[in-house]
């Protein structure tokens, strides 16, 4: 309960303080952090919790962004109403790509999604869709103003709007991965055959996880398009997919809190590294990615969660005995798999819900 109160206070501070105190450029950066966090959260659901490696989530981000941009520029749909549409469209695409993904494991899926990411800008530029997508030039959309005569600049309003959407998405994701379906997802990741033997419908869970994941990243794409007020094919190159992947690994693949760390990382590190040289962001990404995989395989999220667990006031040291039982119960399926992604999400962070049978 204490934890929940602390989180609530933290969220309220997050809503108020930057809106009042930050300049519009810093607010824009924070908005992009929120956007990337939701996109990486989508990847974490698929890669971290379900074990399907995707290097092509930039594609879903692009689909979400273009859905919003096309709806706003061609049909004058209000920006908030484009989110559900792009959620549905991206979930549909995710489901479709999840079907062949059923037959592809591990490296092959990474390879196929990588190919998808490389192909996306070409498809967006193609003349068949040029009337909608604006071809190479892309589309410019209007930045929305604050509604209800609120005394807020559009940057302030966009930050609040994106943050509220993100909070809803995080609460839903949290409940999803802690619940029955989340356990099924993790069981498939850790041992597909055993999961199937326990009555989990592999095809159903995997394709729907893909759909949910694509939906998250697509909504992030929509939010990103609204915040940047511009979409063009070359902003969705393979580098975007790789950036999201780097954020995912930096934060910790199977850690919901880690996605925020990952998002902060990919938003601010390139800005810092850019001052050194044009080549530096890529090199810094690469070096940090490899260093993280060697030194902190659970990512920053897993690392912070481990420290959190050791603090005297954290839930695990209060409840003590039941916590071990809970960990044992949750860990049955991945007992013989020393994989870091199998470990990271077993770190108890919540207020003790898991201990109940």
């Amino acid at each position, binding site marked *: 309960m204490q934890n929940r109160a602390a989180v609530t206070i933290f969220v309220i501070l997050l809503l108020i303080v930057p809106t009042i105190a930050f300049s519009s450029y810093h607010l824009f950066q924070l908005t992009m952090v929120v956007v990337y966090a939701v996109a990486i959260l989508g990847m974490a659901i698929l*890669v971290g919790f379900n*074990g399907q*490696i995707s*290097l092509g989530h930039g594609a879903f981000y692009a689909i979400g962004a273009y859905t919003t941009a096309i709806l706003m520029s061609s049909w004058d749909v209000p920006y908030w109403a484009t989110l559900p549409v792009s959620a549905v469209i991206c979930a549909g695409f995710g489901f479709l790509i999840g079907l*062949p993904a059923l*037959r*592809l494991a*591990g*490296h*092959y899926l*990474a*390879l*196929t999604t*990588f*190919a*998808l990411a*490389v*192909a996306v800008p*070409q*498809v967006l*530029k*193609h*003349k068949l869709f040029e009337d909608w997508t604006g071809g190479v030039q892309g589309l410019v959309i209007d930045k929305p103003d604050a509604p209800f005569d609120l005394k807020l600049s559009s940057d302030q309003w966009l930050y609040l709007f994106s943050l509220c959407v993100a909070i809803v998405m995080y609460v839903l994701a949290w409940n999803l991965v802690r619940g029955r379906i989340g356990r099924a997802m993790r069981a498939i990741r850790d041992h597909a*055959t055993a999961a199937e033997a326990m009555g989990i419908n592999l095809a159903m869970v995997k394709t729907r996880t893909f759909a949910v994941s694509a939906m998250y990243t697509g909504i992030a794409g929509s939010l990103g398009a609204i915040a940047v007020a511009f979409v063009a094919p070359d902003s969705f190159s*393979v580098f975007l997919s*790789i950036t999201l*992947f*780097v954020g995912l*690994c930096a934060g910790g*693949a199977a850690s919901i809190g880690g996605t925020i760390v990952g998002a902060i990382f990919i938003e601010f590190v390139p800005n810092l590294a850019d001052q050194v*040289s*044009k*080549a*530096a*962001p*890529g*090199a810094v*990404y*690469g*070096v940090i*990615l*490899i260093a993280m*995989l*060697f030194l902190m*395989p659970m990512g920053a999220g897993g690392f912070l969660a481990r420290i959190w667990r050791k603090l005297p006031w954290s839930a695990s040291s209060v409840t003590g005995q039941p916590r071990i039982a809970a960990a044992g119960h949750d860990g049955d399926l991945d007992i013989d798999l020393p*994989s*870091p*992604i*199998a470990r990271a999400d077993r770190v108890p962070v919540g207020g003790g819900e898991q201990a109940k049978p």
Partner: protein
Amino acid sequence: MEGLIHQIISGIATGGIYASVALALVMIYQATHHINFAQGEMATFSTYIALTFINMGMPYWVAFIAAVVVSFIIGLLIERILIRPMTNAPILSAVGVFVGLLLIINSLSGWFFDYTIKQFPSPFPDKALWGGFISGHQLGSTGITLAVLLAVYLFFRHTSLGLAMRAAALNPVSSRLVGVRVGWMLALGWGLAAAIGSVAGCMVAPVVFLDPNMMAGILLYAFAGALLGGIDSPLGAVLGGFAVGIIENLGGAYVVGTELKLTLALVIIVCVLTVRPAGLMGRAVQSRV
């Protein structure tokens, strides 16, 4: 009709490049069961090294061979330093290391040799042969590619080192028991793959011009070729590479247009993996649960 023949011949010429890169991918896949996402960037970097040697005043072929040797050493070092510790890591970590490698080598290319598009010389005469069906460079690069493929085949088939490398890839435990130094064999495999990639880079650079992202598309076609032929079959990968070259050229000319050529690679990859995951010449893998 003439156009068709022309397309097929230039398809074979580019197919040779894809075949080399596909072969490099297959060598690494056979040895370590990893797909090397950084293969294309490694080849680009090697091509830059060759260009540096040429600009230093070396004759073309000396620079070429020097670049191949340097690439071999770089490949060896990458395996020893970065890939070895990942032997038993989960797939996500392995993919992460390869993606990190891709980013680092790409940035290093840009850092050392800057991002401007450069011309790369071709050692072959620039004139049309055989009634204009093929250019001197196309013929020469196809010849070099075939020579490399033949050399690799002879090496693996008829030398004891090649045999040891095949054994180490196929059954590491038993190989170690009969005295093969498995770790070094895998490292050698990486070095060879990097060397083959550098040849492909030098052969393709005069056509597509040299910039740090030169190989991104080529890598994709090489993936498609390797999968089409079967990722665990070197011969299959080579034939697959040539096939993809021809499919790409014909498809680009007659079916989808040049704008969607990369999407064609995606379609080939998805089709092969869903219809026949083992590829045309690969073996289906069965694993005990």
